[in-house]
């Protein structure tokens, strides 16, 4: 394998895709637009949300709430920005917060009533106050909640003791610093993102098929065959360039999805696994592209025939397949993109380790299919597709 030739051919392949508007759209812009569209449509992100669910836990007695606490909660409700749900314990409220049912939780401390009453008795004597703290927990994944809720709660607290608040430099009850809670609130978009990685890559099949048929039509393959370039170098250049494109796609999709509000449960190692998985999957696409180019008589026909490989993978192995019936889900196990999506779903949605048996098995399946598809594609193309 001559590195100079390989590198020259890889550069050519990349340049051709970047410089051809249709190819550039398919490989780069399409995944970006798709991610942006689904993120905005299903990610629950935007400025339209004006009310948030607030869990209230009364840690003191009397139960359920004393008069001052009731007044405080009433003021919170009166803002119309927070819908209050009371919880018996901090534990249940925290679970609801982590499940995404709530945007925030406040804990009314045991000494709340006494603090306000001591304050009312001696508003100008801080030494007589009994200071207590209202704890606030907020969904860290919601940028809007983090910014909107603390001032609303602080305002309601101030209003509760408004008559004396104006006379004092400080209050007997403090609002604790908000604790940002990582919640497991998954949007529809969060379920889609692992499938988006595979979805972006499957169109490489079409690009490879078009590239080979177009080069064949123009006589470029024949021309390259009059140089010392070996078939293995030429095929490897296509595999490598498509792997690089797949890496770029993963990077772009992940970066954009994260910017939109994707709740990834995986860390940097999971992202690295995604790069490896999708680049290995790209080799499958090269194989399918070669098989398509073998059958297709022209680049136009290649575009259509490529969908024979793209459609099943799209409907059975990407985010599109999330709601397919049981039978179809079983059929989905026969398409390689299923294993890409399955592994990345385990990592990014369930927080599985990249070294878990499930993830490694999926990677093994995709690697095996990639080798088999590429070998089949090369053999078929060289035997029937070169002329």
């Amino acid at each position, binding site marked *: 394998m001559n590195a100079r030739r390989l590198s*020259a051919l890889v550069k*050519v392949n990349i340049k051709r895709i970047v410089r051809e508007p249709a190819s550039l759209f398919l490989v780069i812009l399409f995944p970006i637009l798709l991610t942006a569209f689904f993120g905005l449509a299903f990610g629950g992100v935007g400025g339209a949300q004006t009310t948030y669910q607030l869990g209230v836990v009364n840690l003191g007695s009397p139960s359920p709430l004393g008069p001052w606490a009731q007044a405080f909660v009433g003021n919170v409700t009166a803002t119309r920005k927070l819908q209050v749900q009371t919880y018996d314990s901090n534990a249940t409220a925290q679970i609801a917060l982590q499940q995404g049912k709530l945007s925030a939780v406040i804990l009314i401390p045991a000494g709340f009533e006494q603090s306000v009453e001591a304050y009312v008795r001696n508003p100008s004597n801080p030494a007589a106050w009994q200071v207590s703290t209202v704890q606030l927990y907020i969904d860290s994944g919601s940028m809007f909640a983090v910014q909107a809720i603390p001032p609303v709660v602080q305002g309601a607290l101030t209003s509760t003791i408004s008559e004396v608040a104006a006379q004092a430099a400080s209050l007997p009850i403090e609002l604790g610093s908000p604790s940002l809670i990582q919640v497991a609130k998954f949007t529809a978009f969060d379920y889609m993102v692992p499938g988006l990685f595979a979805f972006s890559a499957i169109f490489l099949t079409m690009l490879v098929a078009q590239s080979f048929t177009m080069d064949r039509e123009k006589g470029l393959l024949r*021309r390259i065959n*009059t140089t*010392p370039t070996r078939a293995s170098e030429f095929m490897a250049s296509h595999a490598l360039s498509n792997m690089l494109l797949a890496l770029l796609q993963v990077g772009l999709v992940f970066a954009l999805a994260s910017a939109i509000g994707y709740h990834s449960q995986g860390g940097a190692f999971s992202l690295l696994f995604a790069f490896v998985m999708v680049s290995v999957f790209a080799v499958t696409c090269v194989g399918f592209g070669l098989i398509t180019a073998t059958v297709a008589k022209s680049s136009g026909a290649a575009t259509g025939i490529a969908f024979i490989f793209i459609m099943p993978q799209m409907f059975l192995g990407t985010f599109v397949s999330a709601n397919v019936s049981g039978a179809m889900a079983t059929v989905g196990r026969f398409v390689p993109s299923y294993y890409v999506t399955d592994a990345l779903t385990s990592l990014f949605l369930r927080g599985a380790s990249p070294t878990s048996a499930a993830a490694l098995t999926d990677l093994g399946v995709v690697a095996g299919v990639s080798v088999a598809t590429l070998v089949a594609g090369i053999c078929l193309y060289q035997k029937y597709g070169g002329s």
Partner: protein
Amino acid sequence: MTGQMMKMNDAIVMDNLSRNYGDVRAVDGLSLEVPEGQLFGLLGPNGSGKTTIIKVLCGLLKPTGGVAFVGGYEVGKSDGKVKELIGVCPQEPAVYSSLTGRENVELFGDLHSMPKEELRRRADYYLQKLGLAGDARRRVGKYSGGMQRMVSLIMAIIHNPSVAFLDEPTVGMDPQSRHAVWDFVRELKAQGKTVILTTHYMEEAEELCDRVGIIDHGKLIALGAPKELKERFGAKDLEDVFIRLTGRKIREGA
């Protein structure tokens, strides 16, 4: 015949070479030697088998019968060695339209693992010589057909091959471009390269070639220097030679 049996100065030897496409015999028992440094013209109408001969000599097609040697290496058995020696300008301008003229040329230098500096120097020289220097950084897809053929020609010889196959290099070119290509071909000969030129322009063959072989229906029907052939057949030009041999005009086709 073996490579060792070839005459020392033969760049190309064909011995009873045949190539069939199914039932059609495109090349029929061709025997021919081309000495090193000769500018040899393969003449004949479209479909006469000229391009098939080139494809066999380049290792793109396997001969159905007979043997061929290029630079002493047998075609079909030592194709790797043959491909290091040759440069091929195909009939169609096979260029990457999304690459610039310079990128196309440099790609083929890279495929032949040329030293970078030499590649840059030769690319500059030939782009300048064929009037493409000002357009070298434009994508070839934006070039005229004639300009694309010029780029294709440079791609064929950028790596300084000892044997150049130029398959109808001036088809569709305007007279000015054609004369630029003729100068280019003469320079290749002056550099001592063996050039195999296929054409159906008789005046082109008369102008450029040291020796020509006239092909019809895959057979070699005449061989010699243009002047010698004209004298032998009492013809005013090579077109007339072809008419006397076949009873047809060369551009009427097979």
